[in-house]
């Protein structure tokens, strides 16, 4: 059976290609979709489109049938990289939502980003993948909120911790120093989240670098560790693909970073 519930666009510069392919595997079962991977190579010479199309067949869990979904990998070579929306428009499945996963930091204001956001219903980024000035980047990201629903995988990865902190109500309302052992985006987003939820702009946030979110100290004393296992990358992406509407809590947290 061939089926799709969405068109999944992925803007994947070469450096991210392997990781993008890994995240895809395992995701199809939950979100059978037509995936269009766009690999921009703007400096690689003459204008050309290289395409490979593959069908991925997988067993439906607990059922005696298989499903097939489509993966289209397109290399946009030279000038063909400047108008990606015109390349993907004919490949979108009619009447299904379009999700756009942008690997790396989006080139704020650039034509390719503007065009693809126009086509997409939802933009999914991972601010952990960004390098530059994050405060500036979040500001630019928030400018897109009115045009597309935005998800941030860095934010999704703080979900367990946010539930835990929310459980500390009402004591948490008076916290003034928060120390986050994790990535910088997680630190900023948790800070923004607390400020916006508690409607206080006097909460100070301290960052202790770590590869992933390992702990949060509230006014010097460590909060308990949240229960459960770390979710897999494909699960995190998959959860974001379940969402359709804007996420006002996330938007407020970004604006308060």
């Amino acid at each position: 059976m061939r089926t799709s519930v969405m068109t999944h666009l992925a803007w994947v510069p070469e450096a991210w290609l392997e990781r993008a392919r890994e995240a895809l595997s395992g995701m199809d079962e939950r979100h059978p979709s037509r995936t269009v991977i766009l690999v921009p190579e703007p400096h690689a010479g003459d204008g050309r489109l290289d395409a490979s199309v593959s069908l991925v067949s997988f067993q439906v869990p607990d059922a005696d049938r298989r499903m097939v979904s489509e993966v289209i990998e397109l290399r946009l070579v030279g000038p063909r990289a400047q108008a990606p929306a015109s390349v993907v428009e004919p490949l979108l499945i009619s009447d299904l939502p379009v999700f756009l996963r942008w690997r790396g930091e989006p080139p704020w204001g650039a034509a390719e980003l503007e065009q693809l956001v126009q086509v997409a219903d939802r933009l999914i980024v991972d601010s952990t993948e960004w390098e530059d000035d994050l405060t500036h980047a979040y500001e630019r990201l928030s400018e897109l909120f009115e045009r597309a629903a935005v998800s941030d995988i860095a934010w999704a990865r703080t979900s367990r911790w946010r539930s835990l902190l929310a459980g500390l109500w009402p004591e948490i309302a008076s916290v003034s120093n928060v120390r986050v052992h994790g990535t910088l985006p997680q630190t900023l987003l948790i800070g923004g989240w607390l400020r916006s939820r508690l409607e206080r702009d006097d909460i100070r946030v301290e960052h202790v670098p770590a590869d992933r979110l390992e702990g949060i100290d509230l006014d010097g004393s460590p909060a308990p560790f949240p229960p459960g296992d770390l979710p897999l990358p494909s699960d995190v992406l998959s959860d974001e693909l379940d969402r359709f509407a804007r996420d006002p809590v996330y938007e407020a947290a970004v604006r308060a970073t």
Partner: protein
Amino acid sequence: MIFGASGDLTHKKLMPALYALMLRRLLPVRFAIVGVARTAGDDDSWRAEMQQAVRDHARDEFRQDVWDELAGSMRYVSTDFADDGGEDRLEEMIARCEKEKDLGGNRVYYLAVPPAAFPTIVEALGKRTDQQGWTRLIVEKPFGHDLDSARELTALLRAHFDESEIFRIDHYLGKETVQNMLALRFANGIFEPIWNRQFVDHVQITVAESIGIEGRAGYYESAGAIRDIFQNHLLQLLALTAMEPPIDFTSESVRNEKVKVLRALHTPGPKSVVRGQYGRGFVEGEEVSAYREEKGVAADSTTETYVAAKLYVDNWRWADTPFYVRMGKRLARRETTIAIQFKRAPHPPFEEAAGDGLRPNVLLVHVQPDEGVSLAIGAKVPGQGMQIRTVHMDFLYGGAFRTGMPEAYERLVLDVMLGEATLFTRADEIEEQWLLVDAMVSAWQRDRPGFPNYAAGSWGPPSADDLLHRDGRSWRRH
């Protein structure tokens, strides 16, 4: 007899269609095909040219034995009808074919020539309709460029042929998916009761092409999107969507119902019509030129390459139900669809958030590509709580039927041979179509449009979006 035997249409459509019919043993046992054109040539050169055309454009694999059989029945006459000699040569050829093959005298004339050549050919044929058997004349669009010229053409054809002998081709009607609209509506009990103003919020018909004018500037400059697509294909799609159930599937019954719809179409006011012309832009990642930069197009051309309109069918079934239509060149993708958008459920008893991602029910008829029908319905997302999302029930021709889809021309050429006129346009339909187009175009004479107003590769001018936004609606996005 094919007039215009060396032309584009014969290469790309007619010959491949005849080959496909031959392959499927659908042609009569005894027949001859006579090609007529101005180009100098003989039987062999025409056969060679047509063999290549079949190899290039046929949907089936090329089979030499099938081709040889077809080619054995093909003859060529070179004439421009400027002198009686040409007519005589043609008549001799026909007489020879009829004798050699023992044909009964039945003839199909196919006018695959520009309209300027119609009068000479029609008169020449008309003078010689003394043979036995039936005569049928196939005419290609354009059927005039306004009401007056359409009436002139009808008068010309009628002077020599009876209306029942005239077959005006609109190849959209030969498409399976278009005919399926009739099957969908009238072979099913569940759609027709809701196919009206009580249940339908509005209808959207899109005829989008991603190609430009493909070197046809001479024709397109004087036609524009309104004569190229709106007057014929689009109004036919609309008529089939909106028509009342015919009492039977004979040509007169079906066409009577279609013409009633065309007659009921309210002339849209200037605010309900948007025209556009493409500027530079990108198609499939490649920069393409503006319409005014195309070869043969005037640098200040005001020819429209896009039309959108809000139409009303003023009858009991459709009163106050808008039909939004749009068509154009150099749009984001090639797509012809008819979307019936139904009214929302009156009182969904769910929390507001439950319905995020839920859209109203839409019955979507994909005319091309991905031929099929799809119905959008809301379904519960498995798991905790009550989350509802739009899902699609799809019928895809490719998946449901094992036979390939015949090309429109195969079906239509065969219908002519069988004398079946249901899928051809009658003179009164053409007149109604032009009445509407003339009224719309006359409003355009009064102002100079600010062209270009949309980028190639986009979905048309912003004013077309406003046309729906004013009514609190929007175009289907993709």
